[in-house]
């Protein structure tokens, strides 16, 4: 987090709505993708992103810059919100139908791969990996998303999930092993 963010957050605490607008626009994409990766649904990711930012705004005074980066704190709030939401929905539906409604995102992927065959292959791979990911248990999935998809360091994941580093490493390893086994079975 740079000085600009620190200044923006200080202004937000004083009720500056323009600063809040800037904070939202800087970080909402990451929160949105995190929520989507966790649940695999765009509509839920949209609702969750709104819910998360409202919670962030209400609890902004609890963030202490000296205790860590704003992004780490933001991801911890996001993670807690997502888990609460996920637990409420857990009994309502199966997770295997979770990749519905993704078709409109093909164009986004297409920007990075010019060859249509490559686009299709990448899309299939992403779908398979994501389908395996949402079948993982909650404990394993969250750390795997944070590490392999979001690129957080182990120490940052410890801050976000609030479990010892040994547990984080063990969960990440188990998550990768289970994912590899699931994908191997599908081939």
């Amino acid at each position: 987090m740079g000085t600009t963010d620190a200044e923006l957050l200080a202004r937000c605490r004083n009720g500056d709505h323009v600063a809040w607008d800037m904070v939202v626009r800087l970080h909402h994409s990451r929160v949105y993708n995190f929520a989507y990766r966790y649940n695999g649904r765009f509509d839920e990711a949209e609702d969750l992103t709104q819910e998360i930012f409202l919670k962030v705004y209400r609890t902004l005074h609890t963030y202490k810059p000296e205790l860590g980066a704003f992004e780490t704190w933001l991801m911890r709030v996001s993670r807690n919100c997502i888990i609460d939401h996920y637990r409420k929905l857990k009994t309502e539906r199966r997770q295997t139908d979770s990749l519905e409604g993704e078709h409109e995102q093909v164009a986004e992927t297409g920007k990075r791969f010019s060859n249509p065959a490559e686009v299709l292959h990448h899309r299939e791979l992403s779908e398979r990996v994501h389908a395996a990911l949402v079948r993982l248990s909650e404990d394993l999935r969250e750390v795997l998303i944070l590490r392999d998809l979001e690129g957080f360091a182990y120490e940052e994941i410890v801050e976000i999930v609030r479990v010892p580093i040994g547990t984080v490493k063990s969960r990440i390893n188990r998550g990768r092993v289970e994912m590899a086994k699931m994908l191997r079975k599908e081939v």
Partner: protein
Amino acid sequence: MWNNLKCADCEEKLSDYIERSLSDDERSIVEQHLHSCSSCMELVSGMTHVMAAGREFPVHAPPAWLATKIVANTPKPLPSFRSRFASFWQSLGEPRTALAIFTAAIVMGWLGGGPVRQAVFNRAEGVVSCAYDHAIRSYYRSPVVIEIHSRLDQLMENS
């Protein structure tokens, strides 16, 4: 324990092996096991594949309206007393307000005489006393006050 590494033990070390965070000795023991175990070797390949897929995972652009909606739905904080007070004084200095006050003073002065001024004061006094009566009635009719009074009466009777 490391010399005869079993598959379950090897599995526990695979992320560290892939991320190159094992010591040289540990690494060579895991490699020995991998050379002799096709299943674990296949697992390493699968895990590497999973990690690569994670890095290549598409980043989706949120809908354009999302940030605007979030900001619009964020409750605006109530202004502090000091800022409201400052805003009031600031509004007094605005040309439109100043003109209105000035005009009112002129009209009052022009109307001048006692009867009109007296009528205005009488009307104002009537409004104030009406509001006062209303407040007093509301106070004595409120359930909380009635309850407090009845309790006090009971206490006085008991004592």
